[in-house]
């Protein structure tokens, strides 16, 4: 077998069973791997009405056929579950080296189900798999658990995936890490893993990946690595990390300031990649087989947080507990907050988003210090943010309310629709640190329709409007027009979103980093197909390859349909449609912009062949994609969705 390992590992923590299941050639061709494998399992094995913390639920870790090979940036892992934050379909992706190690150990996917009686971790030593006691690890930060496990197993070279205290405490937006600092941030699977009393998975893999046509494969890989040498996005990401975007975001009005009331701040440069590299950058880091090396390692040299160090931060990690909560004057506060969310094991985006929502509720008098246990939620107050991050992770006081996410917190506090206005969510998940009134209208459209909730920079970001202008002619080649490269135009955006979603999905099935295929366009879809075919010997056509992405996307959309989530829920936060972007600096480019979502949504539905009334995938498309059973599942639901009683329900989460 070429590319794939050809089997997955299913571990039942209730029964203690460890089963190896073969993956047929037909199955691998239909789903490829990664997000494809995972979405199929979640759709078929986790009923939409199941509580995400039910022991019977699944958490899946998906690798791909290219994982562990020399193709650029092939070390990612997709983690999928029924999200405790949204109640719907959830997945996230992490870099690092663990995915390649799992592949070398001989597995394309790991499925965890059941619940252990007490804390455990899994030790995978090639084909020997055992469940071990983790009582001594419970409560530890991922960095400390990593050290202890390596000492216990007497091997510094193993790779470990783990959760932090937030996951153990079932914070609904807890996340996982591998190699300590590489996070799969979104949708709260860390809490699902914690609910199973699973601390982590340690892996040693001594195998390899067989390549069908090695000469051809390495020729493609070498050509692509040469492309990266002068690639503009790669140079920026290598030099300054994703913080290279800070000053652009500020200029174009998409850097969230005070819960997206503004698109930036005059002091943004305090936290730019340029400033970070001069003041606190200790070294750069790269994931498995990555030619970009966007990773940072930060060491705070002075001030009250002097001596703290951690892997990161990314733009999306730093912005939410920085400018989004009004902190910008002392960048060391921002780095400290990022370090905290890492060590506690929480999605930095959701943590900052829920705190900033609470701050705006406080600003507008919807809550007072009586509701917050005496905390005065003033913008930019680092002491409050520092305390709240910890209180959320340990579910203390007001933090316990915020730990369930912004929309549930709003309901618990009895704030009604007014509270929800300031949570900046779609389907219960917060939109990240990029305001679509500046970053792009395509991005805004993808927020509304994304298949994991408020989809974001790595899932639905239309990079043809983010970095497309750096690649002259690329928008014309794919979309037929250069005009869509302009962020604040609706021209060409429905097709852009359709195309990018499919392409991003198949990239997630391969588990390749989208920094190499979207942010940077050094690798195009044809290139991915070339190395996929050379590696696996499958010889897919380009349309079959992209059809896998369309198939997975429609499967996920259908899961939401089973939750009665469709056209009425394809909305963006009202702030984007009702509030023209105010000015924050005199060189800002998007003053006055609002997001014209209603202009783009109907056309997007036509591209997706969604039914106009329900927004459900059409029977015709589902059958074309070989998803007849999915068509059968949602056929009886159309009438119910259109019923008067369903139309009256306002669903912020599920």
């Amino acid at each position: 077998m070429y590319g794939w390992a050809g089997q997955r590992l299913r571990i039942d923590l209730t029964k203690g069973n460890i089963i190896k299941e073969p993956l047929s050639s037909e199955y691998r061709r239909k789903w490829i791997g990664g997000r494809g494998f995972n979405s199929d399992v979640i759709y078929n094995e986790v009923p939409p009405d199941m509580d995400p913390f039910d022991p019977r639920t699944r958490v899946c870790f998906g690798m791909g056929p290219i994982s562990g090979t020399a193709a650029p940036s092939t070390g990612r892992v997709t983690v999928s579950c029924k999200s405790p934050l949204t109640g719907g379909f959830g997945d996230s992706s992490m870099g690092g080296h663990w995915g390649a190690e799992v592949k070398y150990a001989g597995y394309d996917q790991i499925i965890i189900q059941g619940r252990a009686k007490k804390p455990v971790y899994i030790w995978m030593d090639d084909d020997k798999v055992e469940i071990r006691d983790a009582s001594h690890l419970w409560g530890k930060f991922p960095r400390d658990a990593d050290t202890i496990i390596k000492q216990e197993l007497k091997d510094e070279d193993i790779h470990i995936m783990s959760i932090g205290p937030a996951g153990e405490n079932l914070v609904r937006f807890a996340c996982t890490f591998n190699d300590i600092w590489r996070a799969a941030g979104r949708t709260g699977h860390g809490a699902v893993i914690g609910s199973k009393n699973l601390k982590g998975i340690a892996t040693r893999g001594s195998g390899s990946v067989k390549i069908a046509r090695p000469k051809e494969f390495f020729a493609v890989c070498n050509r692509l690595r040469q492309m990266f040498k002068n690639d503009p996005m790669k140079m920026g990401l290598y030099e300054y990390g994703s913080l290279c975007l800070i000053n652009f975001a500020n200029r174009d009005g998409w850097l969230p300031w005070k819960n997206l009331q503004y698109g930036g701040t005059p002091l943004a440069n305090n936290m730019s990649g340029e400033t970070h590299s001069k003041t606190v950058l200790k070294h750069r880091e790269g994931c498995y087989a990555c030619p970009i090396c966007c990773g940072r390692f930060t060491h705070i040299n002075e001030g009250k947080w002097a001596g703290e160090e951690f892997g990161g931060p990314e733009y999306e990690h730093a912005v939410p507990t920085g400018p989004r909560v009004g902190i910008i004057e002392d960048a060391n506060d921002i780095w400290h907050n990022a370090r905290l969310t890492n060590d506690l094991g929480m999605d930095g985006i959701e943590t900052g988003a829920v705190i900033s929502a609470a701050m705006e509720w406080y600003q507008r008098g919807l809550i007072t210090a009586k509701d917050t246990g005496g905390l005065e939620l003033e913008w930019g107050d680092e002491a409050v943010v520092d305390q709240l991050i910890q209180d959320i992770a340990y579910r203390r006081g007001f933090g316990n309310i915020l730990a369930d996410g912004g929309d549930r917190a709003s309901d618990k506090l009895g704030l009604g629709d007014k509270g929800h206005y300031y949570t900046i969510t779609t389907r219960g998940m917060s939109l990240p640190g990029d305001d679509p009134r500046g970053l792009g209208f395509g991005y805004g459209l993808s927020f509304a329709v994304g298949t994991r909730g408020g989809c974001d920079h790595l899932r639905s970001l239309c990079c043809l409007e983010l970095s497309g202008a750096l690649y002259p002619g690329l928008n014309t080649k794919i979309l037929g027009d250069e005009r869509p490269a302009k962020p604040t135009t609706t021209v060409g955006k429905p097709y852009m979103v359709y195309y990018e979603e499919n392409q991003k999905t198949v990239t997630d099935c391969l588990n390749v980093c989208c920094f190499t295929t979207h942010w940077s366009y050094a690798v195009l879809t044809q290139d991915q197909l070339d190395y996929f075919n050379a590696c696996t010997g499958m010889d897919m056509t380009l349309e079959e390859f992209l059809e896998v992405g369309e198939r997975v996307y429609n499967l996920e959309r259908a899961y939401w349909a089973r939750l009665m989530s469709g056209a009425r829920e394809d909305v963006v936060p009202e702030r984007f449609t009702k509030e023209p972007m105010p000015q924050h600096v005199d060189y800002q480019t998007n003053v006055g912009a609002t997001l014209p979502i209603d202009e783009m949504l109907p056309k997007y539905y036509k591209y997706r062949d969604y039914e106009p009334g329900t927004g459900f995938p059409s029977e015709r498309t589902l059958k074309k994609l070989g998803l007849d059973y999915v068509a059968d599942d949602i056929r009886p639901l159309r009438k119910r969705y259109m019923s008067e009683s369903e139309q009256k329900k306002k669903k912020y989460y599920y």
Partner: protein
Amino acid sequence: MAVMTKQQAKHFAEMNDFFLDLLNLLKEKGIINNQEHRVMLLTGFEKLVLNLEKKKIISVKEAKDAIAKGFTSLVYALAK
């Protein structure tokens, strides 16, 4: 080969999002079949241009211009 009138070409050129509408027109006119419609929707503009060139609906030069200049160039080539 004229697939549309100049008036239609002008209408397409002024649209905000045109790709699906053009593919639908080409299918309606029998220039592309269902399968080709699907393939080009998935794979993008360049594939459409190359398909039309292969079928001699547009010339080699018109195809080259379309790939360089985009959609507007293509629809006016289809209106000749």
